[in-house]
């Protein structure tokens, strides 16, 4: 009687690490060893000519010489056909052994290590720097924007990471081809805007001449040198994309609009997500803004960060022009992106690069302008009007403010919707390890794109990338 053979391998290695094909059929390896593997099927297989086994990291092994045994197993609730495939092939043996070792190591790291330690082992993430914090936000900003921290612009380097120096110089070209999307180069001047996103800035702006306000703004953010090199903004953004509680009260908003009118500044109003209970007051506000525009025979840009807001704007005709806000214009963003493994070139595009989607947004809501953020890597912006927010990018937000949760309930996880907020963000922030250049501000996390700081005053670079407006927000 022949001795019963067994695979004796590791069970249920994730499909993402080891996948297989029985001829053309995609199979899951439910057991993996150096001498073979097992898989199961709902229906009995016919004769299999070959297996293709795909290992994490890209190795693929074609197995054409093998022995196969089948048994029926009904332990999962229905009978399935379980196949054990015995392989005696050096290449397969080596790949299987390597993967089993890698998997074992990964599982041990996951069980025994903190996230930072695991990242250090698997990438070059400097976990040892996770203990170094700035004393406060002022000190942090001094490092980022002050005399010592300020990095001069590199003409070959754009806000989106490395761009070709030829492109950086080609502001006069009619078309700049970046990948699949032809970006039309505009001859119009690049517009600079500053974002007023919280009560402190609303009040300051109202109480000062605009040029004095801007001087104060740069000084307040330890960025005087940056301020000297940038053209004066000709537009203000009013409102907060990420926190509904930081939007100005109605009376204050109209005061801001009137002062901007006197200062000859264009205005874009930024709205956040809309909670259900906010719909009625927001509808009233939009009606009043429409009236304000009608009286002046002018239009106002409204940055929408909520699908319901787009619907409301669409119902109010041409006076309020919708822009696609950051919370709707999704993108992977993380200050640790440099440590991420894989083809990061795939991050250049997002859903707005799909023409069918832009057409839907234009036809359905009239969206012509998209708001983007400089987020540390190269982006391929689509045709249309593109505003870039610099130098910070949002990574995470919560309608249930994390800062409020810590200040009121002593734990960031004990969250609730603030009915009325006393404004903890007026003097408190979350500080993060310095090396991450990350900041917990309001109900969100923001990271700094250093290249955007140094590239801020390089209009040709921005225009070469299809950007017609730079929106500065130093948080």
């Amino acid at each position: 009687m022949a001795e019963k053979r067994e695979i004796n391998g590791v069970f249920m290695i994730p499909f993402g690490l080891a996948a297989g094909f029985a001829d053309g059929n995609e199979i899951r390896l439910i057991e993996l060893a150096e001498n073979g593997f097992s898989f199961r099927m709902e229906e009995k297989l016919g004769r299999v000519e070959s297996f293709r086994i795909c290992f994490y990291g890209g190795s693929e092994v074609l197995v054409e010489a093998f022995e196969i045994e089948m048994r029926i197993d009904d332990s999962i609730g229905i009978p399935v056909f379980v196949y054990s495939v015995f392989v005696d092939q050096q290449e397969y043996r080596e790949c299987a052994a390597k993967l089993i070792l890698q998997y074992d190591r990964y599982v041990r790291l996951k069980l025994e290590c903190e996230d930072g330690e695991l990242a250090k082992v698997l990438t070059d993430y400097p976990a040892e720097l996770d203990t170094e914090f700035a004393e406060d936000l002022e000190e942090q900003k001094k490092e980022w924007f002050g005399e010592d921290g300020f990095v001069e612009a590199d003409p070959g380097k754009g806000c989106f990471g490395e761009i070709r120096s030829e492109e950086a110089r080609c502001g006069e070209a009619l078309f700049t081809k970046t990948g699949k999307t032809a970006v039309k180069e505009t001859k119009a001047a690049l517009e600079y805007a500053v974002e007023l996103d919280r009560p402190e800035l609303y009040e300051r702006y109202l109480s000062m001449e605009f040029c004095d306000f801007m001087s104060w703004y740069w000084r307040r953010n330890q960025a005087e040198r940056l301020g000297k090199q940038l053209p004066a903004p000709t537009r203000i953004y009013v409102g907060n994309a990420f926190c509904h509680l930081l939007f100005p009260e109605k009376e204050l908003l109209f005061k801001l609009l009137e002062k901007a009118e006197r200062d000859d500044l264009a205005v874009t109003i930024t709205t956040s997500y809309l909670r259900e209970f906010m719909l009625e007051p927001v509808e009233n506000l939009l009606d009043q803004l429409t009236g304000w525009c009608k009286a002046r025979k002018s239009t106002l840009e409204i940055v929408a960060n909520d699908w319901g807001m787009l619907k409301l704007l669409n119902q109010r005709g041409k006076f309020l022009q919708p822009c696609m806000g950051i919370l709707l214009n999704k993108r992977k963003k993380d200050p640790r992106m440099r440590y991420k493994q894989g083809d990061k070139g795939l991050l250049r595009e997002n859903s707005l690069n799909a023409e069918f989607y832009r057409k839907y947004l234009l036809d359905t809501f009239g969206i012509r302008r998209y708001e983007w953020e400089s987020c540390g890597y190269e982006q391929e912006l689509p045709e249309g009007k593109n505003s870039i927010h610099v130098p910070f990018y949002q990574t995470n937000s919560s309608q249930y403010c994390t800062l409020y949760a810590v200040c009121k309930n002593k734990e960031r996880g004990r969250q609730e919707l603030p009915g009325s907020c006393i404004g903890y963000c007026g003097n408190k922030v979350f500080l993060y390890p310095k090396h991450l250049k990350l900041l917990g501000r309001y109900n969100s996390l923001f990271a700094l794109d250093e290249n955007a700081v140094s590239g801020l005053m390089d209009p040709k670079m921005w225009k070469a990338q299809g950007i017609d407006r730079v929106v500065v927000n130093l948080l």
Partner: protein
Amino acid sequence: MKITAGLGSVDEYVRYVRAGADEFFCGYVPYEWNRKYGTILPLNRREVLGVNVQIGSESELRILAALVRKYGRPVHLTFNSLYYIPEQYPEIADIICRCRELGFSSFIVADPALLVYMKEHGIRCELHLSGETAEVNSRMLEVFEGLDIRRLIFHRKNSFADMESVIRQERKQEGCGIREFEAFVLNELCQFSGAFCNSLHCDELGHLCRVPYKLGQIKKETGGNRSDINCRECSSNDREQKYDPEGYLCGETGCGLCALYQLQKAGITHLKLVGRGNYADFMEKDINNLRIAREILENTDTEAEYLHEMKQRLFPHGCSGLCYYLSRENARF
């Protein structure tokens, strides 16, 4: 209210059915997708390769379809990344069509562009709007109604009043609008909102929200003394006794069991129990506890009665305190 549970493997299906799950959701990511996009552009929000959180391979999906035929508890497949790139839309449409041929008819989607693509290409199926999509309000639903959504999954940070209002407004609509409403009730209460969370959750780098941080001041001399709270180190002393001998505590990472009465009142039709890839024994206990809580709800008349009995049976030594719906008076008992 039906129990909708996360499923990480076909091996768990029958166990979870017997524990009380009425339906399931799970992910399927073909090898070709992993090969091309890895975890840089994942197909769903479980953005890892090294953990068993997906139903691996088409062969396993066929087994799952056979289980669904036999046991009658449907499975919804997740295609709920926040966005995709242009070349991916036709690829996803192909995958969805293959899944439909295998017998799966309902899909959870978060990216509005994918919904637009499916509508424009006549891909008809049951669509659930993921809790990762965006803020929810009744005007927002008017937008998505046009994209053939059948079920709305509320995100994790909703109030009862807002949910009730959205559902009431939606039910006023005539025709085939959204008729099913799902709310989170157990596990994985994220600190940030899924729709607004753009950071990495991959094998090699942990969640950004778990990176060490400190509460600090904008400027030292303003706002009083600097707080030395290191927010990662908050803990409670009486934690140990809440766990059972196997180390299980219901709702350890997020719990909304107190809220069942209010959720039912608001019009919620499905209760979401997340935890794909969690330890199967614990998931089984979660489903069983949620089923018990639902039975208590069905057999009590008032919210106070429900809370009293539910706490006595499920949390005799106290709960995790990680409340999905903290505004409840009885939070953290």
